[in-house]
């Protein structure tokens, strides 16, 4: 109960912090629109309605991933420069429980991307999206965002030890769009790349969202998405303890 309360409180306060930045807010609105517009123009040439819906879902996931990947590591770097990273480490609470809510709050903001992209497609491009399984669709969207948030957690803990780790998130932004099948069907990827796609939770999350929208069994994909994300969270938790100790040894918790 205490752990859940801690996670919930952290999530809520960091959601407040992230949602109060005018700069981040404007980018948060523009990015999904930009992704969606690009995708709709590309896929709009096709008359295949289901292809357009799949593209809209892919564009939504791009927004969530972008919201988390670029911000997760930079958020820890920001905490370092504002002097709060040391206070998080100096707290008696296990460090992973303090970092995970930060990236989960970013993923929550990214959820907006799902809604914005679908509405943008409907009203700006006239794409009719009739969801086959609305409830499962919502669950799949939340599961995908949660999984992306936990991937962000793994990226964020690296920033505790390495001051330039923020660049990692930015470097991974676009490759994940491709590898996880957000914009290009997995079938078009070279065979050697497929195992990489399979170990990335958003691959299964986006597949689940598409299944839920277009008809199909989404639950196995949701389960896989969450299971793999759980493994990422566990790796991040173990790694975070080691990285904090390394940061204490190498004096990288503060800028001075």
């Amino acid at each position, binding site marked *: 109960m*205490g752990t859940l*309360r*801690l996670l919930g*409180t*952290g999530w809520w*306060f960091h959601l*407040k*912090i992230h949602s*109060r*930045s005018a700069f981040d807010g404007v980018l948060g609105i523009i990015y999904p629109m930009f992704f969606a517009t690009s995708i709709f123009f590309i896929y709009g040439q096709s008359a295949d309605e289901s292809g357009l819906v799949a593209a809209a879902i892919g564009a939504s996931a791009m927004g969530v991933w972008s919201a988390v990947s670029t911000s997760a590591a930079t958020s820890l770097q920001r905490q370092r*420069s*504002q*002097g*709060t990273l*040391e*206070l*998080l*480490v*100096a*707290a*008696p*609470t296990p460090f992973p429980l*303090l970092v995970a809510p930060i990236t989960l709050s970013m993923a929550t903001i990214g959820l907006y991307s799902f809604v914005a992209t679908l509405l943008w497609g409907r009203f700006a491009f006239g794409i009719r999206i009739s969801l086959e399984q609305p409830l499962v669709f919502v669950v799949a969207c939340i599961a995908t965002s949660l999984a992306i948030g936990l991937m962000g957690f793994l990226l964020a803990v690296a920033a505790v030890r390495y001051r330039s780790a923020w660049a990692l998130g930015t470097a991974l932004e676009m490759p994940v769009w491709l590898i996880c099948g957000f914009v290009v069907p997995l079938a078009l990827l070279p065979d050697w790349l497929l195992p990489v796609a399979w170990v990335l939770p958003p691959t299964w999350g986006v597949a689940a969202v598409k299944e839920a929208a277009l008809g199909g069994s989404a639950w196995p994909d949701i389960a896989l998405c969450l299971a793999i994300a759980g493994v990422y969270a566990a790796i991040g938790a173990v790694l975070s303890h080691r990285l904090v*100790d390394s940061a*204490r*040894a*190498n*004096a990288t*918790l*503060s800028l*001075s």
Partner: protein
Amino acid sequence: MPVIEVDDLQRRYRAKTGIRRRSTRDVEAVRGISFDVEHGELFGLLGPNGAGKTTTIKMLITLLLPSGGSAKVLGFDVVREPREVRRRVGYVFGGERGLYDRLSGLDNLRYFAELYAVPAREQKQRIGELLELVGLSGRETERVEGYSRGMRQRLHIARGLLHKPEVLFLDEPSIGIDPVGARELRQTVALLVEQGTTVLLTTHYMFEADELCDRLAVIAGGRIVASGTPGELKQGVSAGQVLEVEVFGSADHAIKAIEDLRGVDAVSVEERDQAQLLIVRTGAGIDVTAAVLACLDGISLGRVATREPSLEDAYVELVSGS
């Protein structure tokens, strides 16, 4: 048993320079310091910038691992038992950092109360008490980005006290705040010590150390160069007296001659608005006033006065001699 036990504590940093040809060198920030702090004591670490004060505190609150030596806080080793230490200590540092600007003061305290495992049913009352203590009641719902430096510093103090720490580490807490704010801060710290909190304070403000600290250690170049009560330091360093001469114009050429006078221990110059203040420290019972004035012949002089050595004089002598 002492609350804080520091034995031969050391910390080295590896500094990297260059881009193409990278080179590294070890910087010894703390070079084997030892001291103890007793329960309910307010102990001061006094030293110039870069002396190793903050590094020492960061090792004691488990943010840095020592390179050598050992330290215990409340009997817990800072390397082997960091969580036990963290549960029991509070940390407050000076300056504007260390708060979430986009949250209100109240939200900052709520968040840190959660981090420090303050029971949910006690949080509201505890936060209310602390807001009252630091004088932020009525302003707590405003965002921190709109707070003045003094308000931020008071919020820092409240944050550091949320979990009722047995030991409070204050790292230059009054830096950058106005005299009234600094006085209120000193009153708050004195109150905490009265209530039984053990405090380790770092500062380079002499009057703050003189007014607050039961005992002091002067740290310079990573080493403790003197320790004792403020009174002992004043007496131990120089049992002599201080001659102050207000000089209009440059006295630089005369300083060497004054330094060479018999009985003169140290000479320093402080820049004032239109003048320089020449400070000459001498041994006990030695009057060099006439000789100093002779050295300054031809220079326009203002006030000439002698006084007892202050803690600042002791500090300058210790630090410049290290």
